């Protein structure tokens, strides 16, 4: 790829979304943006750059940004965080919030919805314990297109086979021709809103649990720190943050610290901050699947 083309596009994407693209990712620019080039009747990436430079076509800038920031998601991704949510975070909150009976959860990179819907299915499986409780699950993402997909809750055969126990497939999905749609009882449990993590988080409210998994990896260090600080500002002292498998707050933010014994989970690092989770049980059942009657 022409280095000037790469530089323009990577700068554009970084300004719009914070996403950092190193030169070794130029193949990704090609594969994600050539479809836009073709759809608009252009011939090459240079044409796309010329159109974007003219600054009159905001829709094109959005299209480019969304194409680069869309990432795939899976149900119950990495399994263990969902076990932790069910076996540690929820029991803790069922006690800590028993006055208000309200729990607020934010999925900060909701993508096509598998993460918030996985949480919703866990809650639905625990329906008896959750009687009288209100749980608000908010899913946000930069891309309005991917949020539309999340709202529809329609997935391919491949997507419903990765990470989703078949018992949950049968219980919570309906076959729609060759696709599978998650039932409205689950869809209704999640609200989706567009949100750019670079923008202020006004009007979001406070969250007891924040999932911010596998999105910070795309930002540079200062951006990661800033985003974590903003997330911290939306959380009570006993709130927890879930990060992706390869991520950590170490060296990035001193506002959070790891929760002992629970990989990938972080609590507030202040004096009054923190949660007390019972240590994980060995041999717990798979996420979402009932252990016993």
């Amino acid at each position, binding site marked *: 790829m022409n280095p000037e083309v790469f530089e323009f596009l990577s700068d554009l994407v970084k300004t719009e979304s914070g996403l950092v693209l190193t030169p070794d990712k130029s193949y990704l620019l090609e594969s994600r943006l050539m479809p836009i080039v073709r759809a608009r009747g252009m011939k090459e990436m240079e044409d796309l750059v010329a159109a974007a430079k003219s600054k009159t076509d905001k829709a094109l800038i959005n299209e480019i940004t969304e194409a680069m920031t869309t990432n795939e998601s899976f149900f119950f991704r990495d*399994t263990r965080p969902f076990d932790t949510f069910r076996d540690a975070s929820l029991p803790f909150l069922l006690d800590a919030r028993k006055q208000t009976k309200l729990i607020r959860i934010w999925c900060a990179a909701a993508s096509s919805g598998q993460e918030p819907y996985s949480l919703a299915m866990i809650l639905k499986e625990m329906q008896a314990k959750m009687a009288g409780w209100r749980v608000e699950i908010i899913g946000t993402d930069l891309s309005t297109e991917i949020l539309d997909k999340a709202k529809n809750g329609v997935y391919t*055969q*491949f997507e419903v*086979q*990765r*990470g989703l*126990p*078949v*018992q949950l*497939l*049968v219980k919570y999905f*309906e*076959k729609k021709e060759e696709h599978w749609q998650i039932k409205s009882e689950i869809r209704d449990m999640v609200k989706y809103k567009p949100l750019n993590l670079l923008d202020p988080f006004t009007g979001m409210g406070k969250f007891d649990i924040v999932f911010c998994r596998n999105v910070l990896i795309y930002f540079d260090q200062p951006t990661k720190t800033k985003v974590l600080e903003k997330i911290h500002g939306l959380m009570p002292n006993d709130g927890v943050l879930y990060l992706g498998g390869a991520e950590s707050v170490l060296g990035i933010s001193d506002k959070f610290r790891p929760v002992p014994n629970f990989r990938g989970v972080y609590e507030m690092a202040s004096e009054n901050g923190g949660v007390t989770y019972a240590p994980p049980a060995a041999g717990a059942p*798979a996420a979402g699947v009932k252990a016993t009657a």
Partner: protein
Amino acid sequence: MKSCLIVDDSKVIRMVARKILQELDFQTGEAEDGQVALDACRSDMPDAILLDWNMPVMSGIDFLRELRKLPGGAAPIVVFCTTENDISHIQEAMDAGANEYIMKPFDSEIIQAKFSQVGLL
């Protein structure tokens, strides 16, 4: 080393599955229909069974019903692997005692994900 019996009337499918499973450190056996599979289980019960539905002589669902009646037949983890991808087939499989269900086409990742889910990996 865990053992997995691959039951499918397609030689190609058996070969693909065998490759994937051997890479996952399974010792594999093969059967081209439900009757051959049943006989294999009677002599040596495997830890896991990857099971097709539509086969000559004896289908996968009939094999599964017979398997669960055998002494020691409750033990193997049975994962269906079939082109039948509607809810009624899946429900019938689960009711007959299947542990998981893969809808073809499958790849190594799906097999790994499903086998992990049932505790085989």
